[in-house]
């Protein structure tokens, strides 16, 4: 035998798992909610989705190739996820150029300025969304009507915006106008951004990711339970002033945030215990913003704030070591 043998340290076999496969599973999990968005909002949803995805891919490619001068990694699937998530988080009526600005904020500032995949502290899609929310408050809060609404209504408020108005003006919950049924909201007949409206389809996507071990249960469950418990306490004290806690859980992108954004591997804690702390933190901040803050929603800010604590959580929350101490 004349051929040289490969010599490398163990292990000599590897699982068939790859970064790209994991990312694609996240994309598959988002397909039900995406199709529902297209069904409810029509071609406008397709337009927003395509612009967002293509601009995220293009921006990553251009920055990596011409500014960072590294091999572009757009095939790993992570830019695709950011593109879909950004589209999920904005009104489908958003002008094309605002979407591109959002993509620049998401990819350029949120991800690549930190060094790219794996190095970013904040969820890139949320960086993009919050940047747009602060910069273009009018366009970012004008929600076009869904196919379920009468033809003459061009736009409508989201359920949480209705609730927020009620809290601000002291209107009792029972007299609020335009609050849809809970069951309608769970299925996704309410208004909002393309990806957030159907709680049930988002949960189906989440269960798929749990089954495929892309996410763990700790983050979504702790967020949802915290929101349920805290808003439930307020509701029990004064049901006239505060809505049924289930509203909080199935509206305002809470499911989207809890299942798809807070669970982002790169920006969430490494241990189950850490994820519980992180999830409870997100839940508390979300409900505080919704009840006492200026914005009707709050999950985006809550996730970004808790993202900043992740390195600290990783530093102090350690896995259970074998052999004690």
């Amino acid at each position, binding site marked *: 035998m004349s051929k040289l043998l490969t010599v*490398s340290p163990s*292990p000599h076999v590897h699982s068939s798992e790859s970064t790209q496969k994991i990312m694609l599973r996240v994309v598959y999990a988002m397909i039900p909610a995406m199709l529902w968005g297209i069904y409810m909002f029509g071609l406008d949803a397709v337009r927003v989705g395509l612009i967002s995805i293509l601009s995220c891919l293009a921006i990553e490619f251009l920055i990596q190739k011409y500014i960072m001068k590294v091999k572009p990694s757009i095939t790993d699937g992570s830019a695709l996820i950011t593109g879909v998530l950004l589209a999920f988080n904005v009104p489908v009526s958003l002008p094309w150029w605002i979407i591109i600005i959002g993509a620049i904020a998401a990819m350029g500032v949120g991800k690549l300025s930190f060094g790219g995949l794996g190095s970013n502290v904040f969820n890139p899609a949320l960086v993009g969304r919050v940047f747009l929310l602060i910069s273009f408050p009018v366009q970012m809060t004008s929600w076009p009507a869904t196919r379920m609404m009468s033809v003459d209504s061009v736009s409508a408020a989201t359920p949480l915006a209705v609730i927020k108005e009620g809290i601000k003006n002291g209107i009792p919950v029972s007299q609020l106008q335009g609050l849809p049924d809970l069951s309608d909201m769970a299925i996704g007949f309410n208004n909002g951004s393309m990806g957030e409206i159907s709680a049930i389809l988002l949960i189906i996507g989440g269960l798929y990711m749990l089954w495929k071990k892309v996410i763990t249960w700790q983050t979504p469950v702790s967020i949802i339970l915290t929101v349920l418990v805290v808003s439930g306490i307020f509701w029990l004290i004064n049901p006239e002033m505060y809505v049924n806690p289930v509203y909080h859980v199935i509206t305002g992108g809470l499911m989207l945030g809890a299942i798809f954004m807070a669970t982002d591997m790169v920006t969430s804690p490494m241990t189950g215990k850490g994820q519980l702390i992180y999830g409870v933190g997100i839940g508390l901040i979300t409900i505080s913003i919704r009840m006492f803050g200026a914005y009707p929603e709050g999950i985006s800010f809550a996730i970004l704030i808790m993202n900043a604590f992740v390195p600290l959580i990783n530093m102090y929350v350690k896995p259970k070591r074998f052999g004690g101490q």
Partner: protein
Amino acid sequence: MLKTFKIGGVHPPENKLSKDKKIEVLPLPKTVFIPVAQHIGAPATPVVKKGDEVKVGQVIAQSSSFVSTNIHSSVSGKVTKVDFSADSSGYPKQGIFIAVDGDEWIEGIDRSEDLVKEISVDGPEIVKKIQEAGIVGLGGATFPTHVKLVPPKGMKAEVLLINGVECEPYLTSDHRLMLEKADEIMVGIQLLMKAMGVDKAVIGIENNKPDAIKLLNEKCSAYKGVSVQPLKVQYPQGGEKQLINAVTGKEVPSGALPIAVGAVVSNVGTAFAVYEAIQKNKPLFERVVTVTGKGLEKPSNFLVRVGTATSELIEAAGGVPENTGKIISGGPMMGRAIASLDVPVTKGTSGLLLIQEEESKREEIQACIRCSRCTSVCPMGLEPYLLMTLGEKQIFDRAENERIMDCIECGSCSYTCPSSRPLLDYIRFGKGKVGAMIRSRKK
């Protein structure tokens, strides 16, 4: 629910290609190279020189300290030189070259197949004979067995755990030995129990070997104090600490030996070697080696004399297939890739694995996506991604605090990483440095 260890673990494809192949005696080689360091501890000192005639079973290198052991000739013939040659580590190691001539054994070895059940020696005598027979842990760690049997002052052994787990994919040598030498292993276990002064032994076997579990279970009725514990298939269950945890539920404290929780672990192969040493008066100079691989013509289990070149075993299994990319001494998770087919079989060689070209190359390293899979599979509850970074950035004091020395180098982290990161490579580097730091502090 089957028992298994509590933290981490992976389940790679088992690929036990040779599990139904009976143990065959490999024909005698023409020459052997017998290294004097085949165990953990001090190398033995050669006691033969060029030109000496030796017989099978004769001591050719003498144990040089307590943690060391004798080396015996595995063949009869003439010593051609005492020189250095590469072993599976790739480094030149001192050893004895013998040109084989016939097969003449020293006096006193019982070469019959008859089972000798009656134990006629006492505990200390057993330990002494084990030491003389050059017996080391045959699972791969090669720690001298007599050292384990004598607990440090103030500690007491309560239970003997016999490792029949064979959690490495591909390997089947322990499996075959359990099927073909069940009674001998049982007597070996009795001998070890007597040497340790314990009355309880548990054989841990993974559930992918139902035939071995069934057979040994049947044998247990005839041997007092021995039982079989079937275990869920999970790598690295054959690791000493993991096996103790799986069977007894106890955790060996960080930095401590198994005896701290009253356990001593021995491999089934070791139990068999103990039987042969005491009941048959036969020192350790041959062992069962699995030769396997997906492209190999005849995956086999061979009974091989120590010192036989790798090439002889592979020839007997059908030769090196065309597209072989890597040859491993041991299993795919913890074995060592060897650079040459001249590397000899030693006491610790459990198998030879031929890996095909396409599987032998590593994938391109990608960025860590913090998926935490490495953390969740680590059987020691460590954070491999962090230890890798600390190794890479050479922050060794922090690495020590993060318990880098607890790493058992099982490779579960590197196996599972979706970004193909060389986690264990950097952790080994870090362990080397931290180990040196700790030793210099003790001075």
